[in-house]
């Protein structure tokens, strides 16, 4: 028993050393928490700022969409029949009476086709550009494709 006490006393740390260790450990935990909290705050602040930017951009997109519609309509008003006719009159143009109209044949002239405002679905779909496989395939798909081509080349060489 005495031996044990002696042994314990021999290797026991001084009380101030224990306190120091505790304080050190506590400080380490505190600093770690502060570090993590700091990083978290920084990241979340950045995320919030980006979030605000996104919200602002979403609003801007809405405004731009409305502006596009407005401009399109304003252009249509400027090009409307009444406005065009009024401008033509102002510039000195007059409607031609039927009896003064002469049909003039212009070689090579082809009548304008009705308007196409967007790609025609029937014509576009068959010739739609196909994305290269690199953009869509997974790594596993790529490996399998290359393995397949290698084995095909080998079989050709054997023949």
């Amino acid at each position: 028993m005495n031996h044990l006490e002696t042994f314990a006393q021999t290797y026991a740390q001084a009380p101030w050393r224990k306190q120091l260790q505790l304080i050190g450990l506590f400080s380490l935990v505190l600093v770690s928490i502060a570090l993590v909290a700091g990083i978290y705050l920084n990241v979340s602040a950045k995320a919030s700022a980006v979030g605000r930017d996104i919200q602002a951009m979403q609003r801007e997109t809405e405004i731009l969409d409305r502006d596009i519609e407005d401009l399109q309509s304003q252009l249509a008003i400027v090009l409307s029949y009444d406005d065009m006719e009024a401008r033509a009159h102002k510039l000195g143009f007059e409607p031609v009476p039927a009896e003064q109209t002469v049909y003039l044949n212009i070689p090579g002239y082809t009548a304008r086709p009705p308007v196409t405002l967007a790609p025609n679905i029937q014509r576009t779909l068959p010739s739609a550009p196909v994305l290269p496989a690199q953009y869509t395939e997974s790594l596993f798909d790529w490996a399998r494709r290359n393995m397949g081509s290698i084995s095909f080349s080998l079989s050709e060489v054997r023949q």
Partner: protein
Amino acid sequence: MSQKETTWRYSFVGALFAILPLLIVLQVFRIQVDPRQSEKIMIESQGWSSFKKTIQPARGLLYDRWGNLLAGNRTVYEVGVELQFVENPQTIAQTVATILDVDYADAYTRASLEPSDTAVYAVLADNVLQADIDKLSVLIEQMSDAYSGGKGDNLPSLRGLVYTPHLGRIYPEKTLASNILGFVSRENRGYFGVEERFNELLAGKTKTVLVPLDPNRVQEIPEVPAGASLVLTIDREIQREMEALVDSAVAESGSASGTIVVMRPQTGEVLALATMPRMDLNEFWRYGDIYPKDTPFNRAVSQAYEPGSVYKILTMASALDAGAVTPETVFVDTGQIEIGGTLIYNWNMGAWGPQDMTGCLQHSLNVCLAWVATQLGPNDFYRYMQAFGIGHLTGVDLAGEATGRLKAPGDNDWYAADLGTNAFGQGVAATPIQMATAASAIANGGVMMAPQIVRSVINSGYQHNIDQRVIGMPIKPETANTLSEILAVSLETESSDALIEGYRVSGKTGTAEIPTPFGYTSNATNASFVGWGPTDDPQFLVYVWLEKPQSSVWGSIVAAPVFRRVVEKLVVLLNIPPDAVRHRLTSSKGPQQ
């Protein structure tokens, strides 16, 4: 201080600190367990953390066949009040009544609403234009500068007045093609015309999403595809010219109304459809004033009438096709014929003697055509009329199409005499679009095309061109060509006012008495003309209808000249060379291998 006392104090403080979190935990537990509490808090928290946003896609646009915008969108504003911030409802009501022309009492009532959980916001006006909003915002700013910080209950204040932008409909051409387009109400619902017929397609699908206010929870607002846009077959220039011609024809003849339909017989494309009254679609709220009770929005598709002698071309086409008569068949007109116990007379009550079929059409002889119908027999006559689409919807891409009425043997109200009267367009009701479609079969070698208003649909970035549809082949090509020739000759022989220098056209006038509840007792008539040209290669078909003309009751006097004026415009706008030039150009090209 004894150690015991100190220990007690420490224990008390410790217990207090322990109880507080315990109480918090208990409260949290209580809220979690009590569904009413948790639900209430959830709703409240959602109300503060996010808001409901209704995404209304931009309504699809309407274009004419050349891409001219006929219906677009523009920014308009909804003006309302946030009730909890309202300080002076009188000022708000007075302001919106003055600037936005809304009812003061109504605005005051709405602005005076007591804010509550269910009453948060009230709409005062919608579809307000930017110019008015500019005036409003200047006033809000001025009032805020002048009276902010002031004290007193009766200080003028526009606090709580807000405006929210959204898209509303605009029609850049105002009244042009208004009867075809229809209009869109404040609730974004289409009424009449294309707007109503394709309302769902044009409006797209509205989506409601919850948008978080917390920037950390910001989400991508889902893409709501815009409504599909439509390219119409209408030609803006032709439409405008036809509307001007309808207006002048109605004014000159003193008619109650007028209608002109212009179609391409080979495709069924409607190039113009002019009628009256018309309205500035940007002021759709005036609809009730412009179209009083029972006034159709578009007479060309919604008003069936007894077409009169223009109908004779269908009777003759049927008889020629069935072989009941030939162009050379001679009918001796004695001035009257009895069918089903009813005596039928000619328009001038005269007897025209021996007439071949060209003469019958040229002089528009009721007696002859009634006889032709008897030669055909009721079964074949009505079978042909149904094949021509009389009494059926044409399926034109417009809302509110009327079916018209064709009585047939077996119907309770059909009598044997009807065969005779129907033969010259009496006792049968058809819309102008039905008559034009039926006549297009004769102009187009016996093939009847569906009248088409929508040429293409633009959806998700692609244009889908709608195929033209054949809706019937009521007569053989040779019958159609023969009748076309007969009608051209009869116009030429008659030196009709419908003739156009340089172009050979086929056509037929029509004068129909208007039935009253007591029979054909009125002197008023419907004057019509249907014609197409050039006869050997028809590029257009025109149907003219003048309702109750006053200057003359006869179609040959009031409607035929309108047809000529229409064709004079059409040949220029459609680049159709005079027949002589066209034949020279065709022969110089030589036969195609």
